[in-house]
């Protein structure tokens, strides 16, 4: 079982990297919630495993067609973009020089 703020995946990954939150650390309060479940001897025998599934049948799926957004919706999506320069939407630098 991993200890502290290190999570074992293919490589050891700290919770700040895992959550993409700079400086994030595990919480003692949350760890207490984990301990309750880890240490509990709750009987789960007889659980069907499907009481909370809300799947739909294929007949109930909506038509597989493209529905175009209204002009207002498109305008609002563009307005919500965080940064714009000279009419272009600016994204963060992805490829390092």
């Amino acid at each position, binding site marked *: 079982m991993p200890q502290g703020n290190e*999570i074992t995946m293919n490589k050891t990954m700290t*919770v*700040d990297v*895992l959550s993409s939150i700079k400086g*994030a*650390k595990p919480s003692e309060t949350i760890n207490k919630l984990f301990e*309750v*479940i880890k240490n509990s001897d709750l009987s789960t025998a007889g*659980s069907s495993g499907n009481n909370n599934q809300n799947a739909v049948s294929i007949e109930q799926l909506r038509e597989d067609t493209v529905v175009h957004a209204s002009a207002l919706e498109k305008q609002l999506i563009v307005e*919500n973009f965080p940064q714009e320069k000279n009419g272009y939407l600016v994204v963060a630098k992805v490829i390092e020089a």
Partner: protein
Amino acid sequence: MQSQIKHIHQQLISKQISCVDLVQQRLDLLKQNSHGSVNALLDANALKQAQAVDTKIANGENIGLLEGIPFGVKDVFMLQGTFTTASSDFLKQYKSAYTASAIQKLIDAGAIPIVKENCDSFGHGSSNENSIFGPVNNAKDPSLVAGGSSGGSAVNVAKDYTAFSIGGDTGGSVRQPAGYNGVYGLKPTYGRISRYGLMAYASSTDCVGPLAKSVEDIRIVLNTISGKDVKDQTTYESAPIGEAGLADTGSVKTVGYFKNLLENDAMDASIKADFMATLEKLKAKGIEVKPLDFVDAEALISTYYILAMAETASNLSRLDGTNYGNRIEAENLIESYAVTRSENFSEESKRRIVGGNQVLSQGFSDAIYLKSLAVRDKLSADFEGFFNDVDIVLSPVTPGLPPKVGDGLKDPMAMYLSDAFTVGFSLGQLPTLTVPHGTATGIQITAAKTDDERVLQFAHLLEETL
């Protein structure tokens, strides 16, 4: 309490008040923001819609029951062109591109949204103190918290600033503030109301829920916003609940309650005594009362929070400042994500996101996440068994009284434990109504899945009894 909606409707059609004056009066009250319940006023559109209603009335046209009725919207629902902030720094400049299905149905029926309401950020909280707009003060005693996360909605209804409000309930976020502020709040059966346009917190328990001052108003609003929606594949068709049917209170012969949860050390003595007195009154009316064995409070809370954290960590991973939200630039993309999320999420939201990612990680998931899922399935099976024996389950809404403003965020564990009576019904996806009677923070009425009508029927019986 009589129906506010019917009362206002009567005033409008008899021309005792114009719709413009009605809406303006409510906006004037909200503008003072006396209890911190307001994130944004929707005044321009609201007055325009009110004028249209007045024109119809002046022309002698009939208006529908909800036409011209002013209502509030928790600030996690999309309403096209309005700011939808989730009370967060992340989205404080975000404008909804579209409108949530439930809100659209109310607008189509002629109701007028007048305010986006304060709430805990992304629904993360039980006191409405986790908000960039500040805490919401309790409607009965402003030195106390309003409860959360739909605290602004509960206060606006309690203070008559809105005729009704639409909240969201993931683990008690409609029912608990309803109890703290003395109004009705319904978490319907999961899937009865479309979640399309409600910001996702924990998708497997998220529900849209009305808050109002009477059972009748809850019924009217519930009927309007229920139904199948192709944009939310968990929704199902449901028949409207008739007004006459609510008077049929004779169908409830047996009521159950969770004896072990009442014996928890955290239980307030007055709430416990008042709840037991309510059961005695029901017995005196000839209703059989049965104690039920349930999971203990700590295990219940842990199961709920583990699953809710896992789901919110996944849902909120979309917030990285790339396409919308408050982006903070850094030297590269990965660093920009990390700084943006660190600076824009509140401490409580970060606690839940980090916890959720821990839960879902290799090495943790079998021992914690999968075990919690199994416990949840067992709970659901238990509920099915309970409802073979009893018609209704009654419980307090909260184990304690509302805390003082400022105390809620100091002790996260105390805040989580305050949800002991609400989260079980969320995990079971059951219809549950808070009624503002019976104890200082109300009583919850729960029925079997999809039997929302029986919950409302029993609320009538409880009102007659108490």
